């Protein structure tokens, strides 16, 4: 697609999104949708600005983002490391394949209470849920990426007499990078989902907990402000990753 067509599609998309949000705003202000159910988007934004300024949500925000970061870093490193190791042992990989295929089909969130029973109600079960959700996506993406490293690259590494670890770092990692990027995007999404869903279900504090608390307290303003915050953070993170990936792909594939 040429750039002219891309811009046209992008513009239409922007119009569609603005249109939907605008329609929602109008319907609420016209009382077609009652205010006790949902606030107009403009008021949500206002409530968020006030909330951030007052600093009341700061601790929850910091806690949630810390948990997400912990889950993210551990799942990226763990997932990549395990992926590299499994890739070297084809027999192990073949045996583990059905488990990988089934992993995201089973509701392992159901084990969250078990984690709480083991570790008590702290941040650890929350981080572990985020980790559990994200790590396998990274492992699968690593395996797929390493599969697609052209065999000739390994031969070039040997011609240059590179040691094993050096080969992994300077050859396999960059060569598998496009696939690893897919894993990275999933890791970010799943870390957020894992942490926030856990905070919803049962947590001492954090954004998920704060939203549930506000809901139970009939405090719609705070609730929607926090929801908006989460949505904005996640969408921004995705857009940054997407932009980075596009730049990488353009350079690699000469698009």
């Amino acid at each position, binding site marked *: 697609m040429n750039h002219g067509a891309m811009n046209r599609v992008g513009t239409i998309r922007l119009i569609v999104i603005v249109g939907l949000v605008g329609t929602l705003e109008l319907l609420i202000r016209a009382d077609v949708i009652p205010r006790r159910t949902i606030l107009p988007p403009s008021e949500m934004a206002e409530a968020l600005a006030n909330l951030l300024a007052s600093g009341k949500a700061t601790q929850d925000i910091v806690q949630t983002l810390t948990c997400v970061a912990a889950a993210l870093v551990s799942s990226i490193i763990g997932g990549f490391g395990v992926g590299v190791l499994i890739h070297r042992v084809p027999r192990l990989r073949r045996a583990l394949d059905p488990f990988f295929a089934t992993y995201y089909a089973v509701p392992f969130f*159901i*084990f969250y*209470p078990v984690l709480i*029973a083991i570790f008590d109600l702290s941040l650890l079960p929350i981080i572990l849920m985020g980790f559990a959700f994200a790590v396998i996506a990274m492992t699968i993406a690593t395996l797929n990426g390493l599969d697609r490293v052209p065999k000739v690259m390994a031969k070039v590494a040997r011609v240059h007499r590179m040691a094993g670890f050096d080969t992994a770092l300077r050859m396999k990692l960059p060569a598998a990078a496009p696939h690893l990027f897919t894993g990275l995007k999933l890791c970010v*999404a799943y870390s957020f989902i894992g942490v926030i869903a856990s905070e919803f*279900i049962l947590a001492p504090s954090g954004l998920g907990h704060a939203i549930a608390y506000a809901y139970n307290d009939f405090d719609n303003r705070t609730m929607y402000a926090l929801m908006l915050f*989460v949505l904005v953070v996640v*969408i921004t993170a995705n857009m940054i990753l997407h932009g980075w990936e596009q730049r990488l792909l353009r350079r690699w594939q000469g698009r």
Partner: protein
Amino acid sequence: MNATAKRSFDILLVLVALFVAWQALYHVVGDTALTSPLQTFAYIGELFTTKSERFAAHAWETGRAFLLALALSYAIGMSIGILLGAHRLSGAVGEPILVALYSLPKVTLYPVILLVFGLGLSAKVAFGAIHGVIPVAIFVMNAIRHIKPAYLKTARTMNLSPWQTVATVIVPATMPEIVTGLRVGFSVTLLGVLIGEMFASKQGLGFMVMNAINLADVETMMAVAVLLFAAAAIANGFLLWLDHRLHRRV
């Protein structure tokens, strides 16, 4: 030993290793937090016999919500997918939006759903549906976009009616990818329903598990969790087999 037998044996080894790890964890952590594999399976047996009435009530509640949510996910997801797949401009505009929605923690929207639907069955169905609609839509959309133009041209040269084209060309051509989408939709819809039950319900298997932890009833907690786990794994196993069979034909 031929290759398939070897592989089955290896898979069995991994399963055994998992059970051993479970048992070891039980020894480390103790009775207050876990039950051993044997105890868990014994209790599962009890759920189906002596405690069956209570269990059946909750299971039925979850099952009901899940099946309704699944029907909605499939119906709405396929409609959106077909529309975006067939109409190029809509597809180009809509795809990034769908993909962005896929990675959102939709659990963040649960309170809105509760406000709209109140506590109860319809809220749970909505939880499941908002999770399942998106992957179904994405896969169906891609399946239709990926139909080889050569197939459609062939249908025209044979003067097939629109109905015939859909039934004999489009459906078989898109079936494998659509089934993959239905499989993914199945899992996330179940996840959505269960999370909803864990956080805002007084009935259902998700509630059963959360309630058990509040009562420090480790046996129920483990038994129901393992049961759900196994049921989902088996269902997915079947759908995967179906998926592979269809993909092998293509």
